[in-house]
């Protein structure tokens, strides 16, 4: 598998580390145990297009949000995770 890092370009799988489902956001402080439980344990396990977090640890160290089909492994988009660097904030 190859992932097009928005910063580095296309790179091979070995440079990346997988985390998983990128759909749900971390509950705010004060969230209930049930909400946090859902966030931590009840991840999406889609057979098809899925939004996921990947880490380009073997490259620019950016966390990426990757849209990937779990049936075919085809990747349709890659974007920086919310706060990569000061990039968005700066421009």
């Amino acid at each position, binding site marked *: *598998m*190859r*992932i097009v890092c928005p910063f580095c370009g*296309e790179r*091979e*799988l070995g440079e990346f*580390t997988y*985390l998983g489902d990128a759909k749900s956001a*971390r*509950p*705010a*402080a*004060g*969230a*209930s*145990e049930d909400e*946090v*439980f859902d*966030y*931590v*344990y009840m991840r999406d396990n889609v057979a098809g297009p899925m939004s996921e*977090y990947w*880490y380009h*640890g073997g490259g620019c*160290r*950016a*966390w990426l949000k990757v849209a990937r089909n779990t049936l*075919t*492994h*085809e*990747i349709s988009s890659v974007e*920086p*995770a*919310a*706060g*990569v*660097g*000061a990039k968005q*904030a700066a421009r």
Partner: protein
Amino acid sequence: MTSSQPYRLVSGGLIDRAAPLGFRFDGKSFAGFQGDTLASALIANGVKLVGRSFKYHRPRGILTAGSEEPNALVELRSGARREPNTKATTAELYDGLEAASQNRWPSLRHDLMAVNQLFAPIFVAGFYYKTFMWPARFWEAVYEPAIRRAAGLGRAAGVADPDHYDKAWAHCDVLIAGSGPAGLAAALAAGRGGARVILCEEDFALGGRLLADGGMIDGAPAAEWITRTLAELAALPDVRIMTRTTLFGVYDGGTYGALERVNDHLLSPPEHQVRQRLWRIVAKRCVVAAGAIERPIVFAGNDTPGVMMASAMRTYVARYAVTPAKRIALFTNNEDGWRTVETALGAGLQIAAVIDARPDVSAERRALAAKAGFAVLNGSVSGVEGGKDGVRKIAVSLTGGARAEVEADGLAVSGGWNPAVGLTSYHRGRPKWQDDIAAFVPDGAPPGMVAVGAANGAFGLGDCLRQGFAAGAAAAQSAGRSGNAGTSPTADEEAFSLTPLWHVAGKGKAFVDYQHDVTASDIELAQREGFESVEHLKRYTTLGMATDQGKTSNVAGLAIMAALSGKSIPETGTTIYRPPYVPVAIGAFAGHHRDENFHATRLTPSHHWAAEQGAVFVDTGLWKRAQWYPRAGEKDWLESVTREVKAVRSGVGFCDVSTLGKIDVHGPDAGAFLDRVYINTFSNLAVGKARYGLMLREDGIVYDDGTTSRLAEDHYFLTTTTAKAGLVMQHLEFCRQVLFPEFDVQLTSVSDQWAQFSIAGPSARELLKQVVDESEDLSNEGFPFMGAREVALHGGIRARLFRISFSGEMAFEISVPARYGDALVRNLMLAGKPFGVTPYGTEALGVMRIEKGHVAGPELNGTTTAADLGLGKMMSTKKDFIGRVMAGREALVAPDRQVVVGIKPVDKTRRLRSGAHIIPKGETPGPDNDQGYVTSVCFSPVLDQWIGLGLVERGRERIGEIVHAHDPLRGEDYDVELCSPVFYDPDGGRQRG
């Protein structure tokens, strides 16, 4: 014919007669030529019997001339380089080659294991599932060893492979598999179009079927066209042709696997060179021109040596100038088979007869037969007479029911062609059935890939050239190259006519899968017993599971199954195609990464100094760390470690702790950020101070710990454990980039920037004073416990100094820029001489942390909570932090959890061992009273006894209780006392000192 190679034609072929080669097969010496394969050289010498089959030990010869060979498998080379199951048909001949037949005893000709054929009526498909069940223990003792010995073909060397392998990456616009007419045409078009091209050819010669079948291209003989084309390709700057290279798999994102047999054609690889190289090829487009595989027809005796695929027969005659037989019969169901007749006649060989299963044979063919003086029989081969010395006579069932016999010493068989659909199907694609050629052809392919020519079911030369060229040009274009591809080479069209024929009924064993001895009647049995799904058929009979992966057998097998179950072949379907296309040596997949090069090694800044001191090193992750520093006269590690501990506790010692993960946390929000990732608060840490921090995972379990210091308002220096350094960095980046992007914080790993040493012991300050500039105040007031700041060293070097202690002694950690680490230890040794300074290793470090009750890896085992570790009070209730909520789940705060406690044997002379379990005293150990275990142990020089830490149910409430340490693995049982985990200086006076 030359006398030493009686079956070598006097002229012709693509062999180099000026380069004779000697080789041995089963100990006997033979000669061949450069350009031969082992198979062609054996044929040249009249060797027909090459191997024995898997189950029945039937004599077998050479069936094919390629990587689909099921029969002619040998042990190639000898000693540590012995390679079992090597196909004689692809093994390139070299001078001094040694090969041996396999799966026979005592010899190939007189194989006593052939007695298995007597039991053939019992050894049907799946027979072993029905027997060998009683008595139960006989399986491991009697039946299984016998089966295991009988199974498996060749013998592995059994000793380390002496050769080297490596792996490399390549990148191109257009990758082409195969150098036949379609592949070369594709390369030409893509290369002219300006694309970066890689063409992989598994053979050592380029041309594919053209090498044997010839033909006319652009009005010239094929050989001329090949020469011309190769010259043009060589002149293109970015076309790379890789021979002896098999494209074996396609993976995601346009990554392909290929194996280059760099030096397999030599006796052994030249110095500094590898035997084989694994290529990971990244290609925008791939053109599969991998050709097709001719398929056998299943009839009784079809495994007799001398029965050969028709295309292989003419390959041997035309390409290698050898004669597999002197009087050849052809059994075909298609027009292509007749090429073998033409080739054989052209080489002056005799044709015994052609048995053609098609209802109509063209007048042209009949005229050829009449001219050459052989009969054309309309019908099928129903039996073969012969044995290990080859074919003698062929029984024919004529259309209409009459029978005939043909005397011949070789039988060429053509049942049609199966496109090589492997590569196009490896993404779980299923090929589709094409009626006119009665074969499966690709039905789509992985992204970016297209099949052309015979691999796409187009068998005519003209078609191959046209499809290959068009695909090459299109691939270049879609890769963004816009050069002019020019015009396609052309050749006359050829008609391909075929009447499907899979199985001829007859008496005797008719093999579908030669190597696994799967017969037509095995398939019938499988169908009878309900193993009708092709996957069940495969698994029950082992059809297609041999080293050839059913390249010659799968389609015939499922065609027979289809007929039996009354379904069509496409309804019956294929099994899933799996890579690799040809078996690939495990060594090649490992490449450089074997033995001591399995993983990289990390060395600390003081490594070479420690090695000079004779330190013993231990692997910690990728690190080599000094474990202890033995001195002359010390009888064992324990004596060395005890000395090191005592030296620290009574004087001063130092230890390289550079392996700790070190992270610069910068930015105005650094403190707030750390508050989120640690359970305790860091935003209120004063500049110039250090604090111990504990991190949880989001599920509430302890993740990592370490000391973090505030060096400036907007700069913290965070340390992690050695084991988690990389993972914590990843975690913090996740927190920074994903969870808390609102914080202005920047992270950098500085693990390698700083050489860090712990300097510990009552004399630590005195030692440091020698090294640090006089202006620095190291007094308790000027630099109290948990202080952290930058200091100047004698000689102008700047260092970071931390007054932290893992040992429980007055201690500092000092960081210097890494290239000065070596100088620092040497200076410490120099300056420390008056104090008896002692370098200590990780063992002494561990002893002192256990004496102090500090938790480490064995306690931070991924299942313990902060409270389990006795650190529950650190959890802030005033802020959000990672893991806060999940840590509160009922089972994680249950009162009966196993928590960290100190443990010491009641008998002070007793050794305590990690992994011993804790059972209430006086009870019989069982699952219900297994209350915990010993996590860490050491011999405490201070207490003069073995002590340890453990995780014990309600441990903290039970201090003083005598319990039982149960260690059945090591046959030990003894009483221990649960005690405070802090064995040494419990009020901490020494470290604050």
